[in-house]
């Protein structure tokens, strides 16, 4: 288990170094990419096998005992997130081998895997400062990936993305500093034990709010969501898919971890704040999506809206609601990556992703049309697709806890999402083409269609065979709300 726990980080980052060494030999690079994708997926499945029964495993880097050394720990929640991140990362990597526009630069794949390693590290670490370091690792990689093409919109998008995310990191670091001053420890499990004994509630709250603001910026929660729709549509589709699938989820993951494990003393006000933010995030995301013409920007706004749903579950703070949150996180990560990859295919065929210039996609490519139907209506939450189950559990949890207003807002937002999604379908797929075809049909290749099919299949699987995923999510939510197993795995003792 010692070995297995560090592999999701070392395999991608080590592979990145090897791939960089072969930067003038694209064939070897591609073989290495395939190998890395297979290896990371295998590692994630092995970890799932270890934790599926509800065990929590941990290892101390360098044999320094907790709480002094850096802990790597995996429980149900981190396992599920790891699975999703390796799946999406792998599929996006395969897609970019097939897409010539993505891999013009030799540094592309190394950065791609450094980002993946950083994401995995953030999911695995049990140390607050180490979490900051992984955030920086993945941010640096994402900064460069976003700006790599060097086009004007990309650079402008990157400026906004970089500035706001750096501000978030700085707030995180300030919060960490204050927490260390209060408790003298940064190990999350140890913090959970020690923060309860800190008498200075004001300073604890100050630190908690700094961290909350930092994670809100990173996961694009109202009022800090503007950077996301300003930048996510600019990089190539595989990069956008990776960002859409993973980056905001890391922020949400950290938020869930901190506010279920560490800051549990003074919860009423915080969770009320989370619920208010959730409602505002949902509404502003979907309102932004209503008026967009560019399909990628539209999906970017819908990410913001869906983040609101996830946050709502955290705000309810019951086992059922957290189950819904975790399930919905898995659903939205997969669906959003699929859709961003699909916009890459549409751009390949039509030369644009603007809704007012698209048309007759269904007539030209019926199979792709059916494939598109799955994720896009899962996004709207139609039964029996994956989005429906997530929203169903969340709404049910809200009704049990009697948050009628927020649940009503959520349902209204869902309906509006359905309308937005139906508009995409009508304008891009059903309407007769308004402009002549701009490009000849070059073959797409298995490497671009394959990942999309796999991810779409996962969406269907999450919807039609939701039971085992729901069971895992339920177990993970139970572990989050009753962290004794987590603390025992780190600190030992009863």
């Amino acid at each position, binding site marked *: 288990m010692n070995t297995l726990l*560090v592999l999701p980080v070392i395999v991608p980052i080590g592979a990145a170094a*090897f791939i*960089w060494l072969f930067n003038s030999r694209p064939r070897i690079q591609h073989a290495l990419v395939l190998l890395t994708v297979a290896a990371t997926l295998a590692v994630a499945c092995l970890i799932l096998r270890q934790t599926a029964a509800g065990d929590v495993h941990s290892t101390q880097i360098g044999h320094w005992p907790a709480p002094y050394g850096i802990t790597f720990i995996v429980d149900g929640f981190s396992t599920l997130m790891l699975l999703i991140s390796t799946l999406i990362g792998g599929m996006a990597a395969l897609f970019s081998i097939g897409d010539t526009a993505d891999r013009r630069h030799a540094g592309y794949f190394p950065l791609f895997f450094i980002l993946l390693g950083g994401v995995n590290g953030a999911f695995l670490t049990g140390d607050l400062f180490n979490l900051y370091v992984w955030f920086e690792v993945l941010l640096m990689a994402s900064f460069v990936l976003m700006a790599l093409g060097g086009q004007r919109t990309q650079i402008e998008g990157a400026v906004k993305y970089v500035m706001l995310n750096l501000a978030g990191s700085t707030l995180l670091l300030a919060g960490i500093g204050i927490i260390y001053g209060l408790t003298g420890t940064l190990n999350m499990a140890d913090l959970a034990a020690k923060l309860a004994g800190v008498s200075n509630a004001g300073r604890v709250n100050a630190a908690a709010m700094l961290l909350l603001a930092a994670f809100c910026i990173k996961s694009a929660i109202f009022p800090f969501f503007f950077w996301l729709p300003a930048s996510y549509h600019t990089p190539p589709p595989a990069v956008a898919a990776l960002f859409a699938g993973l980056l905001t989820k890391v922020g949400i993951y950290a938020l869930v971890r901190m506010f279920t494990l560490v800051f549990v003393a003074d919860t009423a006000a915080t969770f009320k704040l989370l619920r208010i933010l959730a409602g505002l995030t949902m509404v502003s995301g979907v309102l932004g999506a209503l008026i967009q013409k560019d399909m990628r920007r539209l999906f970017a706004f819908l990410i913001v809206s869906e983040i609101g749903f996830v946050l709502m579950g955290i705000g309810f703070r019951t086992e059922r609601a957290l189950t819904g949150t975790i399930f919905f996180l898995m659903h939205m990560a997969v669906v959003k990556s699929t859709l961003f990859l699909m916009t890459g295919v549409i751009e390949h065929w039509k030369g644009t992703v603007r809704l007012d210039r698209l048309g007759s996609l269904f007539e030209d490519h019926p199979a792709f049309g059916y494939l598109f139907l799955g994720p896009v209506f899962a996004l709207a939450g139609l039964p029996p697709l994956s989005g429906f189950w997530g929203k169903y559990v969340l709404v049910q949890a809200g009704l049990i806890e009697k948050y009628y207003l927020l649940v009503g807002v959520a349902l209204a937002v869902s309906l509006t999402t359905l309308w937005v999604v139906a508009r995409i379908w009508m304008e891009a797929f059903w309407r007769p083409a308004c402009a002549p075809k701009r490009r000849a049909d070059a073959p797409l290749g298995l490497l671009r269609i394959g990942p999309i099919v796999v991810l779409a299949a996962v969406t269907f699987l999450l919807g039609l065979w939701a039971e085992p995923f729901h069971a895992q999510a339920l177990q993970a939510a139970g572990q989050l709300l009753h962290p004794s197993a987590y603390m025992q795995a780190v600190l030992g003792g009863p």
Partner: protein
Amino acid sequence: MPSLILSYVCGHLVPLLLAVSVIFFWSGHNQPGGGFIGGLLAAEAVLMIVIAQGVDAARRRMPLQPGTLVAVGFLTAAAAGLPGLILGEPFFSGQWTELTLPLLGAKIPLGTPLLFDTGVYLLVIGATLSIAFTFGEK
């Protein structure tokens, strides 16, 4: 424009700086110093060449290019974690052995932290220089 005085001074300072960097690197074993500071000093030596003779001259005189140095340094540092894993201990657990010098009879403790530091040393040189070269070439 290469300046004669600078080039001359540089020719004498570069070996000196490199030697100091290795001393700093080695003293990091038990005292302040180490791979990071040593690496910065070594990078500074190369930067002297950049200032005196330009980026191209510096590139020509480096056996490994900065990008390669970053990758090699990273892999070296990561390799320091593996012995612990192979022995069934956590990643990066320190493993030590003693090397006896054949003529002097002195014992030098060698361990995985030294390997890690070597990796950091190379990585810092590579990273600093790739930044400097990028800006220098503009």
